[in-house]
Every structure is written in structure tokens, then in C-alpha cells.
């Protein structure tokens, strides 16, 4: 019988300890959190700098010079305005609140932001961070530290570069979705499932940034018209600084070299001898990258196999009735792609941005060479400029659609 009294003892134990546990320290109701859904970062202008208050430090006593100040624009969900369940028509109030603050660092700006908001800022639902090109070119590293230390931040949040100032993205009111930042986030998230952009989220950006043999890349957005946003290329980095961008079609080329299977881009290919073109769309790709040393110099040979589909032809004069013409188109496509790849690689070599991760191949496959000659990221970026390439592209058109001619 006596051991049965244990429960009472346990209850007493907890009873005694309850005064100890006097509180729900971390309890913070969902409606008392200011859900920051998106953040845009710009370089603060002269006028905006003046607005800084002495919140996290006394002015003139901060080691970072004034020029480096940033402006953070945050989009915060207004709880009452986003209804539960199916949306009723006629909700005229704005569902989100957009606030601009300035600060020396990201955390500084967030602290300033908190000063303006009654509820505690909550970054757990931060879906997208927009950096303006200006900020990206001056270096992203100083934001990363805060973002990585904070456990609330999702590693799967998106990070994008904008051509215009990032604050404009926060203020856009898209037609398709009630909450602007969610539209923006979905837009970016869907890019990779549509094959328009390689997988890209903030965690991946960090991973690539910290590994020695590659440089990060991010989507580059541009505002078209009043409220539509377009993926306008790929921003590539040297270290943490953005050094250039590609045009949208080159993203497909980049994905091919990087070995991302899902194809999404189509390009017009001129049919030989016909002076007409057809739209060939990549369905999937297969890439093999081989790294060797030629006379002690690093050399990369890339072999890409395309599986494509003809989506559209321009005029009736081309007859897609026999396979010979397809073969010609295949050859032409391969040639085009090869030329584009070479061009893209050249331009990245010029900027010392190895976004393709060739360095990783050298590090993994030729560790002796790497340990002897490279070792650091800076060294690799130097070497990358002089890497020679050997590219082979093979296209197979498997489908032509429902039309027989």
C-alpha cells in the first residue's frame, strides 16, 4: 500500500514548487505580437538620417560611420483587419501597417521600430526580406549576424534584391492577394517550383556564402507598372557584396550549369536555313561537371543534356513533320545554349563571382590541389578568373505538343 501514496507526494512537490514557477514567462498571446511579415532594407537618405533617435546608443558615440545608416521598412499585420474564414467583401481598411525606421544596424533599426509599436515585434512570420540593390552592393553581411542569432527567424524565409528602393515593395498593393507581403513571398516561393529560379531562401544563401568554393546568388526583382512585380534576373555576389546581375533568360542557363533538373525557361531558337524560329522550352536537364588539372591549371568540363519541348512555332513555313528538322533544331539549340553559357561564365569570371560552385567541385574532388593551392575563399576567387572551360551541350526534343505539324 505504501508506495501508492506517491501521487500525493508528487502533487505536494508541485504544490510547493508552484510559487517558484510563478509566471508564464514566455507566454505572449498571438494577438499581442506584432507580426512582421516582410522587411525591406534601404540605405537611408540624408533626410531620413536626421530622424534617428537615441534609443540603442547615444549619438556620435557609435563606431559605425553615419553614411552606413540603413532604413528599414516593415510590413506588420493588423490583427483585426484580416478576417477569419472566407473574406467578406468590402473590407476597406488596410490589412497591414507599413512603418519606416532608420538605424545603424539591423538590430538597431528593429529596436527603433519596437519603440514605435505597442505590441512586441514578432519575427516568426517574417516571410520575405527585400534588400535594395544599393544595400546589396554595399554588403549584406552586417544583416546576417542578427538574422542568424535570432531564433525566431525562419531559415526558409526568402531574401531578394530589388532594383528600386525596397520600401516601395512594402507599399505595393497587389490585386491578387489581400496581404501584400504574402503575395510577394508566394511569388518568390513559386519561382523555384515553376523552374524559374533555383531554390533560394535565406538559409541557402548563408550556406553558400559560408562555403569556400562558391558565391551566393539571389533573385532580382523589378516593379513593372503600378503594382506588378517581375523577376528580372539573378543578382550575383562576390563574397557578401552584390557585383552584378544577369538577364532573366540567363537564369535558365545558370540553372543548367548548376545542375538543377527542373527546367522552366523557353527560348526562341532560329531554325537553320529557314530564318524562322521556334520556342524551345527546357523540360529537364542533366548536368555533369568534371574538374581536372590541365598543366596544373584548373579546368572544368561541363556536359549538359537537355530534354526539351517545342511550345510554339512562329510561322507556318516550318513543318515539324519529320524528325530531321527536329534534329536541326536540337543542334541549333545546343549551339545557342553553349554560347550563352560561355558568355555567362565569362561575365562572372570578370566579377570574381563563382556562383556555379565550381570551387566546391575542386575542393571535394581534388582535395590535394585545393589544400596546396587554394585553401581560402579569396584565393579561389582569384583563381576562378583564370579557370578554363570545356562545355558540351546536348539537346533532345521529346515532345512537340498536340499539333502534328
Amino acid at each position, binding site marked *: 500500500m505504501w*508506495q*501508492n*501514496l*506517491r*501521487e*500525493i*507526494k508528487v502533487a505536494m512537490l508541485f504544490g510547493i514548487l508552484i510559487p517558484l*514557477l510563478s*509566471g*508564464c514567462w*514566455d*507566454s*505572449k*498571446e*498571438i*494577438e499581442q*505580437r506584432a*507580426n512582421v*511579415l516582410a522587411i525591406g532594407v534601404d540605405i537611408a537618405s540624408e533626410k531620413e538620417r536626421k530622424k534617428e533617435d537615441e534609443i540603442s546608443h547615444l549619438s556620435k558615440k557609435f563606431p559605425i560611420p553615419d553614411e552606413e545608416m540603413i532604413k528599414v521598412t516593415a510590413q506588420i*499585420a493588423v*490583427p*483585426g*483587419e*484580416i*478576417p*477569419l*474564414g472566407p473574406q467578406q467583401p468590402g473590407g476597406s481598411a488596410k490589412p497591414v501597417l507599413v512603418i519606416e525606421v532608420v538605424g545603424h544596424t539591423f538590430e538597431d533599426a528593429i529596436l527603433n521600430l519596437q519603440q514605435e509599436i505597442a505590441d512586441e515585434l*514578432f519575427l*516568426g*512570420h517574417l*516571410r520575405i526580406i527585400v534588400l535594395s540593390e544599393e544595400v546589396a552592393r554595399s554588403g549584406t553581411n552586417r544583416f546576417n549576424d542578427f538574422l542568424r542569432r535570432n531564433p*525566431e527567424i*525562419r531559415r526558409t524565409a526568402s531574401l531578394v534584391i530589388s532594383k528600386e528602393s525596397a520600401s516601395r515593395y512594402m507599399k505595393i498593393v497587389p490585386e491578387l492577394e489581400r*496581404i501584400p507581403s*504574402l503575395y510577394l*513571398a508566394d511569388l518568390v516561393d513559386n519561382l523555384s517550383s515553376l523552374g524559374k529560379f533555383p531554390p533560394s531562401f535565406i538559409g541557402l544563401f548563408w550556406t553558400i556564402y559560408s562555403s569556400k568554393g562558391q558565391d551566393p546568388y539571389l533573385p532580382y526583382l523589378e516593379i513593372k507598372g503600378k503594382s506588378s512585380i517581375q523577376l528580372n534576373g539573378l543578382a550575383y555576389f562576390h563574397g557578401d557584396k552584390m557585383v552584378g546581375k544577369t538577364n532573366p533568360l540567363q537564369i535558365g542557363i545558370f540553372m543548367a550549369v548548376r545542375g538543377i533538373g527542373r527546367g522552366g525557361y523557353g527560348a526562341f531558337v532560329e531554325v537553320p536555313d529557314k530564318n524562322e524560329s521556334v520556342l524551345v522550352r527546357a523540360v529537364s536537364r542533366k548536368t555533369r561537371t568534371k574538374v581536372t588539372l590541365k598543366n596544373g591549371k584548373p579546368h572544368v568540363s561541363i556536359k549538359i543534356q537537355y530534354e526539351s519541348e517545342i511550345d510554339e512555332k512562329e510561322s507556318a513555313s516550318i513543318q515539324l513533320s519529320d524528325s530531321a528538322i527536329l534534329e536541326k533544331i536540337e543542334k541549333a539549340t545546343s549551339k545557342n545554349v553553349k554560347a550563352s553559357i560561355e558568355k555567362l561564365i565569362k561575365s562572372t569570371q570578370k566579377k570574381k563571382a563563382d556562383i556555379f560552385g565550381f570551387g566546391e567541385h575542386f575542393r571535394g574532388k581534388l582535395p590535394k590541389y585545393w589544400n596546396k593551392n587554394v585553401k581560402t575563399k579569396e584565393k579561389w576567387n582569384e583563381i576562378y578568373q583564370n579557370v578554363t572551360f570545356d562545355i558540351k551541350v546536348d539537346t533532345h526534343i521529346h515532345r512537340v505538343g498536340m499539333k502534328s505539324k
Partner: protein
Amino acid sequence: MSLLRPKKRTYKKPQLLTPSKLVHQKENTPTSSSLDETEQQIKEILGNNGDLKIKHFKIFGSFSAACVYFSSLVNKDSINKDILRPLMYEPEHLIGKEKPLAQLIDIILTETLYHGEAKVGGCLDDLIEFMLRGETVIIMDGLKEAIHIGTRKVDKRAIAQPETEQVILGPREGFIENIATNVALLRYRLPTPDFQVKTMKIGRLTKSTVAICYLKGIANETVIKEVEKRLSEIDIDAILDVGYLEQFIEDNPFSPFPQTQSTERPDKTVANLIEGRVAILVDGSPFSLLVPVVFNQFYQTTEDYSSRFLMGSFVRLARILALVFSLIFPSLYVSLISFNPELLPTEFAVAVAGGRAGVPYPAVIEVLIIEIAMEILREATVRLPKQVGGALSIVGVLVIGQAAVEAGLSSPITVVVIALTTIGSFATPTYTAAFALRMLRFPIMILAGIFGLYGVMIGIIFIFNHMLSLKSFGVPYMAPVSPSDYQGMKDVVIRSPLWWMPKRPDFLHPANQSRLTEKDNKVLEHNKVGNDQREGTSNGGSEGDHNTSGNNNLN
């Protein structure tokens, strides 16, 4: 725990000479041979009762005797026809024979009386007890012994469908209050000499008959002995229901979890007996108590076994889910809302925040309030007469729920969560087990309010550890999950087809393990082959020896 144990107080008891004490004084004193004296003694003890009847008559017209009985307890018809008539009219075959007084009892018992339950008894206290149980006592002048005849007739309820354990498939019989009927219900399903019923009397006042039923050769002997031992140590004035016994024989009375299972269904009892458990029946209670139990049987029903295996397994999975729901759903909600909203999809999180915007309390308090309201509502609905109950539940659910949301007392999602939880707790077939989980929901909720998901986890670990440390008559409570037992595992999450379970679960340590025999399985195969052949085989599968014994009495 000396603090909690009340100190023994000694005070003088008032000396009142109650009838029971009088009987006690007369213990083992043989009845007097004088009819008047015996009658006097009986009247002294029971004379106050209006339903005590003493009828004087002459046996065979010559020996004066008295018939004593409680009119409320006996079958008067039987007394008139089967006792008084044959005794008063001298039967033909006895006419003219010499009937000495000394042999009178013998003659009456063997040649005269038409009643099957007639015995001879000598002590007054015994006789009184027999009378109190509804027997008729015949005292004869000049004889020290008396005859007592079982004429008990108490009105009983008809066998009806059990109210607490309804099934769609399966038998409709339920136990009733009368223990003889209950044992009959069991015996009719188990016509085997192995089925044994041991009886004992517990309760100083009620003297309730307690029957221990088991299958010899299947139930573990040590468990039977342990049951008998624990039962025999009970010393209480009254046992009114099997639940009284449960509290005395369970291993850990402070645990929220039931360590015995009570059921109203004879088929369930039989199924458990066959698995090697012991059933305890009490006169006056329509429930049988099954020991030893393990946790998983609380979410099993007999229906699982009578339906096909896919169906049974699916329903059981749903029930397990409901069980989990009823335990942790509100606390998960609390921790998601107040601690980790980042786990919710963004769109939903923002919407939930909107729904909660007007609620003044933290989620824990809100959930606790609604939960307690729900508990009260549930209890009220159970107690109310059926006609009013329906109305109340409508008022409770619709009006209060709707009004609470509109008044800003709770958010719509909270109402959804609580409703799901409450429904989940009703899906557990065993009332006691469902109750345990319903109770434990509250401490977990409070832990969730303090620590979020971490607190929920702590609570669950605590509950699991407690369950793992429980034992019911030597059987670990969480068997066969842990300690794991391959045979038993087949019947935990899914209900495997019956032919997959050829052995009885090992955790009950049954004396005989095999459930299916090799031969029976072959009969099964044979039947299936017979299906293919269609014609030609006139006696395809019916050649099994099930029916060859010839005793196909369907009575």
C-alpha cells in the same frame, strides 16, 4: 504519510441491543424443540416487521408446525402449491404408513415436498439468515431441526441492451442486477467445465454475494489467488456495487487511471475470460469487474472483433486519435497560440490573431473557462431527465458558444478546439478511462500555459511514466506496448485478423496460450477451397467436428 492518517479515537459506544446483536448472541444455539418457544424467539428478533408471516398448520393433519417467511421476499404461489398443499394433505402413498416423529423430516424431504431446494437446518441464527434471504422455514413441534426451502422471488429487471456500451454489431444483452441471472448469462456462453465460479460473501450488512469467475487452465493461477486474497481482506459494512470492490482491490488508488475494467456486457466479459482474465460479479450490480487490465483494452470494444478486420482497425485508429485529441488538443492550442505562433501557416496565424483580438484573457484562461463550462454542461446533461437533456445541450452548445464568441469572451477557434476535445473524449468506449484523460487534460493545460510545447511534453512524459509504473495484478499497465510483446502488439493499434493471432496475449501469463489450433486453420483453408469447387463436393467444409457432438439444443 502520518499527516494524512486520522488518529484513532476511542470513545464509548452506546450499548443498544439491535436485532443483529440478538442473532449474534444466539449463534450456534440449536433451535428449541418446542414450536412455541422457537416462534417466540423468532418474534423477539424479527417481530417488528410487518412482512414477517407465521402460519400455523398441521403436517399430514397430525403434526403441528409453523411456516415462517417474509411475505415480501417469497414466491407465495410456490409456498401455497409446493409446500403447504403437499404437507397438509397426506399423499396417497403415505396413507396408512407409520410416521414416527423422528423420521418426519426424512419423509417430508424425500417423499412429500415438491420443492427442489429444501434443506435441513438446526441453528436459529442460520434460520433467521435464511429467512432474510427469502427462504421459507418450517418449524415442527417436537423437532430440534427445521426445514428451510428456497422460495425467494425478487422482482428483477428484464435483460436489456446495455446503456453505457452500445454497439452496432454484436449481441444486445446486458447484465442485470441479479447475480444468478448474470452468472447464467456467462455460463450460457461458456458451456465448459473449465468455467468456474467461486462465491464469497462480503459486507457485514449487505452480505453481498461476490462471484469470482474464471476459466481454469487459461487464467493464471497466481492472479486468481491474488484476487481471492485481496477480496477476502475486505471488511466493510456494505458492498452496493462492483465499484466498491474496485476501490479495495486496485493496485494504486491514487492513480487517475482505472486499473480494473467494469463492463455491462456478458459477451465482453466472456471474451476477457477467454483471454485469461478474471471477472468479479456482485449481487446487485449490473457490472462485472475484469482484472488484470492493460491500458489498451480501454479503447477496444467487442465490436472491433465482431466486425471485419479492416473496419475494426480503422475504427480503432479513429478512437486512438480521439483519445490523443481529448488529452492534448487544448494544450497544444494554448502553446501554439501563446508560445509558438510561428508554427502556424502565416495566413492562418494572422487570421487567428484577428479572431482573438477582442478577447481579454490569455489563451490558457480562455480555454480553461470554456473547458470548465463544458464539464459542467456535460455533467448536467447526464443527470437531467432525457426530455430536458436535449434542450439543455442545445442551449449549452448553440447559445452559450455563439454568445461567448460574440461577447468577446472567447475566440471562435477556441470553441472549435474545445468542441473537438469534448467529442474526442466521448469517443473512448470506457467511461473511466475517458474520465482519466479528461482530468489529466487540465494539468497539461496549465503546464502548456507556463512552458508552451515544452510543458506539454513534460506533462506527457510524466503521464507516460506514471502509466508505465502502474501494475494491475502483476501485469504492467502499458503491456504489450512496453514491455513489448509481439503477440499482444497485433491487437494494439490495429485489430489484426483473428487468424493472425493464434496465441493469447503473453502479458497476462495465461496458463494455456494457444487460441487457434492447427486443425482449425486447416478447416478454414478447406472451406475456401470448397468455394472454388462449387459443385461435386456435397460436404465441402461442414465436415469439421464442430457439430458432430450432436447436442444441438438451441434451448
